[in-house]
């Protein structure tokens, strides 16, 4: 036996309740009564069910997230922790989530988990990875017996038969199914798959519940490669849809998302072929052009063109030489003509033409003075045409300087 003070007892009770796992995270279904909202914003009420009741506190922060505040008599699902309030010595439910009871416990749990994982960052858009363009190995986690697997394989066969599928079978519903999904996922993480599809065909909401399992969500989050979820129909949303890198509305859609279309690949190849031959044609055209250009340069430097050019030079030389010689001949001829003119001007022949004669002694001396001759001298007379001899006659007059010239015909 021990003696405790009240505060010691209350602290003990508080620690006792705090240590309990169930009380830390619990859903309680009940009816609201004695609801009051303090001016501070915190709400206080009682949850009742039959004869049982428990006091509840909902902090302002939780209350402010509710669309409408609960009213007395409303059936609700309250989530929170149970703790001992030492000041009053009361056990209280600290509510952090309040849902109308009609929504169902599963749905309430779903939203609670979703909020928690979102707060933890598991849905962060920034950590979503893009899907590989050409996945070589595609991991598939689904039931071996469901239609979903065949649907996905058909899509992959049609769109991208180059892929290799690594199928990790699991159970998709029922107790323990979550563990088989987690095992399948981790088994795939040990392989070299490039992308993983987690899929399940459509079913009732309870059937899809496995994919709302927190541990499954964490296993998906741990994936080293992008994960595509394809669970149920388009309208179904499960937790792993939020965690997956890409959410597909159905298994077939997931298979389409991870696979490139072979038609596009065929087009790619055709386009590459086109570019290949276009580039080669262009290259050959360039080569042809280069050759033409080189040939032109070669022609300029060819011996023929050199000879042609030299011949042109020679022709030019000859032309210049001829011109020079011709000019010189013309010049000489002109000079000669000038000399001849002057010569003709000086010639006595012109004078003789007019009837004058040149008198010469028999020795050929030009006689210009009568004293040069004596009677009986023989002289020669030159006229315009021909010459003849003459005999000097004695001159009877006093003018001794003038002798009569006796004409004597010369042969």
């Amino acid at each position, binding site marked *: 036996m021990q003696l405790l003070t009240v505060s010691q007892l209350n602290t003990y009770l508080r620690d006792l309740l705090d240590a309990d796992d169930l009380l830390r995270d619990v859903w309680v279904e009940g009816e609201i009564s004695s609801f009051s909202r303090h001016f501070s914003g915190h709400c206080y009420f009682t949850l009742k069910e039959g004869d049982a009741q428990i006091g509840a506190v909902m902090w302002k922060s939780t209350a402010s997230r509710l669309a409408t505040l609960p009213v007395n008599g409303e059936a609700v699902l309250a989530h929170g922790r149970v703790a001992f309030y030492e000041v009053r010595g009361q056990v209280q439910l600290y509510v952090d989530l309040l849902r109308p009871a009609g929504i169902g416990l599963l749905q309430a749990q779903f939203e609670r988990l979703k909020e928690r994982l979102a707060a933890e960052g598991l849905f962060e858009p920034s950590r979503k990875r893009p899907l590989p363009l050409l996945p070589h190995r595609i991991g598939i986690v689904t039931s071996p017996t469901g239609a979903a697997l065949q649907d996905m394989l058909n899509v992959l066969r049609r769109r991208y038969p*180059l892929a*290799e*599928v690594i199928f990790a079978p699991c159970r998709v519903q029922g107790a323990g199914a979550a563990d088989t999904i987690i095992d399948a996922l981790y*088994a795939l993480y040990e392989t070299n798959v490039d992308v993983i599809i987690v899929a399940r065909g459509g079913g009732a909401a309870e059937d899809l519940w496995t994919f709302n399992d927190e541990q499954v969500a964490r296993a998906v989050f741990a994936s080293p490669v992008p994960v595509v979820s394809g669970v149920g129909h388009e309208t179904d949303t499960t937790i792993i849809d939020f965690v997956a890198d890409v959410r597909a509305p159905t298994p077939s859609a997931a298979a389409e998302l991870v696979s490139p279309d072979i038609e596009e690949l065929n087009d790619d*190849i055709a386009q590459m072929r086109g570019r*290949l031959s276009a*580039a080669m044609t262009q290259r050959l055209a360039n080569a042809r052009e280069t050759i033409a250009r080189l040939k032109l340069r070669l022609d300029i430097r060819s011996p023929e063109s050199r000879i042609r050019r030299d011949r042109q030079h020679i022709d030019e030389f000859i032309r210049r030489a001829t011109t020079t010689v011709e000019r010189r001949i013309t010049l000489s001829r002109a000079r000669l003509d000038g000399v001849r003119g002057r010569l003709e001007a000086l010639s006595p022949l012109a004078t003789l033409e007019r009837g004058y004669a040149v008198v010469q002694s028999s020795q050929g001396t030009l006689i210009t003075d009568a004293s040069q001759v004596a009677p009986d001298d023989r002289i020669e007379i030159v006229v315009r045409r021909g010459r003849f001899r003459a005999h000097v006659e004695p001159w009877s007059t006093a003018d001794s300087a003038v002798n009569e010239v006796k004409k004597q015909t010369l042969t």
Partner: protein
Amino acid sequence: MTQTIEPAPGEEYEMLYSRLQQIVEQLETGDLPLAQALTLYEEGVATAKACQRLLDHAALRVRTLMESADQSPAITETDV
């Protein structure tokens, strides 16, 4: 560790395709010596053909991871 040792057809395709891309880009720069360009062109044509052959003859390969007795997963090829 369960690795498939054999290369997937997709890996071969991607390798060939990226080689093809490389060849086309190299040819398109246009400043290669002609002999080299011709060699590249021939390689390109052959590579494109090989890519096409892979696409034409590809058949989806499916392997199943099985839990064996010693709890370590093993890959078996199965008709699924």
